[in-house]
């Protein structure tokens, strides 16, 4: 059997890769791609804890499903904002969207 730690380490690596993407990509869409990876790593954790805890207690899966809904809401609003910014400023580079700068 696969021990629980493998899943946790897998999701930790996935989370870190996503975090790296969020922190270092210049493109707004690419930043959102990184966020997707991070949300997925959370879901892996939730499913793993459900499987390795009490299986009949479904809480882990309920949380994972709520995360799906949150991810859908996040992506739809996030990408809509990117497109709106692109229309106004003609750029999707995060550094160049500096309207709030002093």
């Amino acid at each position: 059997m696969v021990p629980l730690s493998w899943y946790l380490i897998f999701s930790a690596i996935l989370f870190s890769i996503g975090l790296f993407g969020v922190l270092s990509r210049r493109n707004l869409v690419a930043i959102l791609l990184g966020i997707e990876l991070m949300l997925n790593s959370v879901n892996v954790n939730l499913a793993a804890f459900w499987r390795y805890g009490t299986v009949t207690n479904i809480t882990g899966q309920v949380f994972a499903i709520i995360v799906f809904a949150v991810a859908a809401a996040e992506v739809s609003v996030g990408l809509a904002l990117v497109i709106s910014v692109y229309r106004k400023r003609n750029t999707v580079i995060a550094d160049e969207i500096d309207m709030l700068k002093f």
Partner: protein
Amino acid sequence: MTIDQIIFLVVAVATLIAAFRVVTTGNLIHAAFWLIAALFGVAAIFAILHASFLAVVQVVVYIGAISILFIFAVMLTRKDMRDQGPQLNRNWGFGAFLAALALVGLVFLVHGWSGVTKTAPAFPSEFDAVSALGNALVSPDAYVLPFEVASVLLVAALVGAVYVAYNRK
């Protein structure tokens, strides 16, 4: 090593490679397709975990809807994709450092926790996760409120996103 472990390792390594390509590929369409590969790998992990419902929902929602939305968004902003220029910002080294720090911290936390070497309990053969989910989502003493609030959240996201993205001429 047992067969389960080999399957897990193959899927996990493939997923992580795909995830790494997501954050390093210059061409954003390719990054979106690598994201699909990574999401598919996560779906396979769900299947290995016996979370059948999550596995198909992962494919239906993430691959069938979210990644297509990403591809459409990339297409809409493609004039400015700048596939050639640098894809990482100036302080990417700092970002890498923070990501590595997060990884080390998480692994340290996992390492120090006693429950980590736990193996999975036998999967009860009569247990139907989908109907248990159905019970949990609609019974008042469980998650009926999150269930309804999720629909409010989705409507708010729909109205907000469509309003922002709609091109008023």
